[in-house]
């Protein structure tokens, strides 16, 4: 796995500091003044278990904006999706999904769901779920929704309109739960994004497309 280089502009994201409250609406002034970074997801993981990786020629672009007001941090994601898939009420139907992965206790963890000693903290959004799930992973196939109620403090906004999914995820910067990473100002965190196309593509579980490790700098 090539060593990351800090200069790559498209892999550094800055969480801008905003004074005062930020709402979960896309038209909130905070978003207008925050520059967006476009992240390309190109690492295709195959369906029959996540063991195989091939550098498919598929690239999915995710527009990312991150802001925080000292108490809560807001992640703003947008990506193209021709047909939204929200319901899962039949065997063959899968919902669109998106996830962000951050090493939990170490600075770096294996990008495949972390490892036993280098766990990762994932926020997993799926179009049909009532709210995003806070997940802890210690390696492939071990991801588990964190059971403590403190970590269920994630709120979100989701909307699909004319070909674009808009998802805003927020949670408090610091948390008492040991199943959640706390964000501290002027620190940098590894961040990886993943995306699943539902519907007939039926991407779920190990069948997804992910980014490389990115760098999230909290101003």
């Amino acid at each position: 796995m090539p060593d990351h280089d800090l200069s790559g502009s498209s892999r550094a994201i800055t969480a801008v500091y905003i004074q005062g409250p930020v709402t979960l609406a896309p038209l909130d002034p905070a978003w207008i003044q925050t520059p967006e970074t476009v992240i390309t997801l190109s690492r295709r993981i195959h369906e029959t278990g996540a063991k195989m990786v091939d550098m498919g020629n598929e690239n999915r672009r995710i527009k990312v904006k991150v802001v925080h007001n000292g108490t809560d941090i807001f992640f703003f994601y947008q990506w193209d999706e021709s047909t939204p898939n929200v319901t899962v009420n039949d065997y063959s139907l899968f919902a669109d999904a998106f996830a962000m992965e951050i090493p939990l206790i170490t600075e770096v963890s294996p990008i495949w769901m972390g490892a036993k000693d280098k766990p990762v903290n994932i926020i997993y959004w799926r179009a049909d779920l009532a709210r995003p799930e806070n997940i802890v992973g210690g390696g492939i196939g071990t991801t588990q929704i964190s059971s403590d109620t403190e970590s269920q403090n994630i709120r979100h906004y989701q909307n699909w309109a004319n070909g674009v999914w808009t998802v805003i995820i927020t949670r408090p910067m610091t948390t008492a739960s040991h199943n959640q990473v706390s964000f501290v100002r002027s620190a940098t965190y590894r961040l990886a994004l993943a995306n699943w196309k539902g519907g007939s593509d039926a991407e779920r579980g190990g069948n997804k497309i992910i980014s490389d490790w990115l760098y999230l700098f909290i101003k």
Partner: protein
Amino acid sequence: MNNVFLTPLSANHTESINRSYLYKLLSFGFRYPTSETFKTFQNGEFFVRLWDTISLLPHVKFMKTEQAEQGKNVQNDLGKSTYEDFVVKLIQTFDIGIPEPPCPPYEGFYRSKSRTAVMLEVTEFYRHFGLAMSKRDGKRELPDHLCVELEFLHFLAFKESQTRIDKDSKSLEGYLLAQKDFLNRHPAQWVPKFCDSLCNRVDIPFYNLLARVTAMFITHELELITSHIKPFLKKNEGP
């Protein structure tokens, strides 16, 4: 850890009392009317209480507009009908049909799970609060009847108001969570469907209006309760 986050207790106390009273009124409205209770529908006394209570509740005050549009034609329809043909229409809507009544006021017929499963769930709720179906003077109703579920919410809202008076925030959280969970798992799942099937099939203006008010009240109650609970979540999360 201080409980400053709670808005002043006393103000909410009257709100939960009024909510509890509205639940009692709605439960009363759907009960099988005796000729006296029918008179209170006909002479408007029931509605006066209904609209007054609604006007005292900020989160459902807008329903007063229903009174203007619907109230009048309900009133003159009631005026026209005698007690006999009012109850005949009621039975033909709620109790008897070939082979089943068009809008039976029981949750078990609106959920696609088995009715025994539904009844087991609601009786678990009642049992947890030390409540069971009354057997007094020959009453033998089934636990998933609309009036029983409304009466249970009347109980919870009333208990909520008591804890606010005693400033017992531990129990208050319990009653708020109970209301949110019961509303979410039961009335919210079927009362809207019951209201739709009632309104577009049957022409008893009185019950159409009452069902619409109940359905709207339940949806807004869910929002109100979830907003009341939010401070509790924040409370836990302190450093």
